[in-house]
């Protein structure tokens, strides 16, 4: 599979070019356009893999859709253009046998060699991290496309690093995080608007987004008419 990003970074779309027999699994609703002749299947499991109903349910809790769409090329060099619903960027992450933990709504697409599953980060983190209850765990080999609200940056963590909740896109599972206070005092952290933050430790890549969906929602929400 070859990929190319269009309209970066504010309104990014990914143009994927597949050879006959290659297939890509996308988030429901991600397809913008495609060439003739793609086979499209909608299932609740990984392409050719295990899972099914339970995995679909877990994905729903992870902020993703119950169903997945699989696009398989039937001819040479067929192309597919995909994009997320909200403004923002897309990055490509090459899977080489490791595991990447992806924040619920940031998973956009992955090639058929990548296994996707929902993972639970613990009840404390689920309630207080400001992120979803479940995360999407990606493993195997192949291509992975992630999307963000805002620009995406990568930090090579070696030791410790602090990310405000709402800004995490993905992290390699050689990293782990716990919740902590942003400032010296707990009260100060809450008054200062930061509340609890995610403190990462270990060694590995961490991807974060420049903008925070809950902060945007808090600003826009009160201006919307009651529904």
């Amino acid at each position: 599979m070859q990929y190319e990003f269009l309209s970066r970074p504010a309104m990014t779309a990914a143009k994927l070019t597949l050879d006959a027999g290659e297939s890509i699994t996308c988030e429901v609703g991600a397809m913008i356009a495609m060439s003739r002749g793609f086979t499209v299947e909608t299932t609740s499991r990984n392409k050719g893999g295990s899972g099914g109903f339970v995995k679909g349910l877990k994905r729903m809790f992870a902020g993703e859709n119950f169903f997945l769409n699989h696009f398989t090329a039937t001819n040479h060099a067929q192309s597919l253009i995909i994009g997320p619903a909200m403004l923002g960027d897309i990055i490509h992450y090459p899977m080489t046998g490791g595991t990447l933990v992806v924040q619920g709504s940031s998973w956009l697409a992955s090639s058929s060699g990548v296994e996707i599953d929902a993972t639970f980060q613990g009840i404390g983190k689920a309630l207080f991290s400001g992120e979803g209850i479940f995360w999407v765990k990606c493993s195997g080999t192949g291509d992975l496309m992630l999307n963000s609200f805002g620009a995406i940056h990568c930090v090579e963590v070696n030791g410790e690093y602090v990310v405000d909740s709402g800004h995490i896109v993905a992290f390699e599972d050689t990293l782990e995080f716990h919740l902590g206070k942003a400032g010296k005092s707990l009260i100060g952290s809450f008054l200062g608007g930061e509340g609890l933050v995610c403190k990462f430790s270990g060694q590995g890549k961490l991807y974060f987004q420049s903008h925070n969906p809950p902060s945007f929602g808090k600003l826009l929400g009160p201006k919307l008419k009651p529904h």
Partner: protein
Amino acid sequence: MYAEIRDKPSFANIHVKLQPGDQIIAEADAMACMSSSVEMDTQWSGGVVQGILKRVFGGESMFVNTFSTKTGGDLVLTQPFPGDMQCIDLNGNTMFLQPGAFVACEPGVKLGLGWAGIKMFIAREGLFRLKVSGTGRVWFGAYGGIFQKEIDGEFVVDSGHLVAYEPTIGIRIGLAGGIFSSFFSGEGLVTRVNGPGRIYMQSRSFDGLAAWTNAHLG
């Protein structure tokens, strides 16, 4: 202190590299991520009374956070909406910022509160405005792109599009045209600015986004 605005113009955020002795003061909730060697302290924004006034009348937060480090570290500061940011260097001069525009400043900058007036409140621009003065860099942001203009004489800005202006600028709220055209042209109230002085405008308005979204809710 190294500080760079990156991802302009749609997702501007500030990448700061702090050395021991450096300090940067940021709006509450502006921190996106930071090295664990960076420390955060929360204070009232310009004192208790001013902090409360800012929250109640100015649309700003009551608190600001000060970031510092003992060993050096990175910090990323952002704003809640997509858009551009601008950095200005104060050298004893003053600048007024509209509510919500302030992102960060250096410790030599004083964050004060200026009375904007009842008319500005009616025009939904806030009863108070943030007055930044002193010396050092100030970063402010906008929903949309930012453009500046040197005003000499009168200039008309649609309400919700003015982001920052120099204190020499006089501001009046008025109708865009006659009574009829003001209410049916979709422009309604506008801000009439009088120079000489510099103003900063944003290419979109957040109230405009809310109105558009409301119009499209099922």
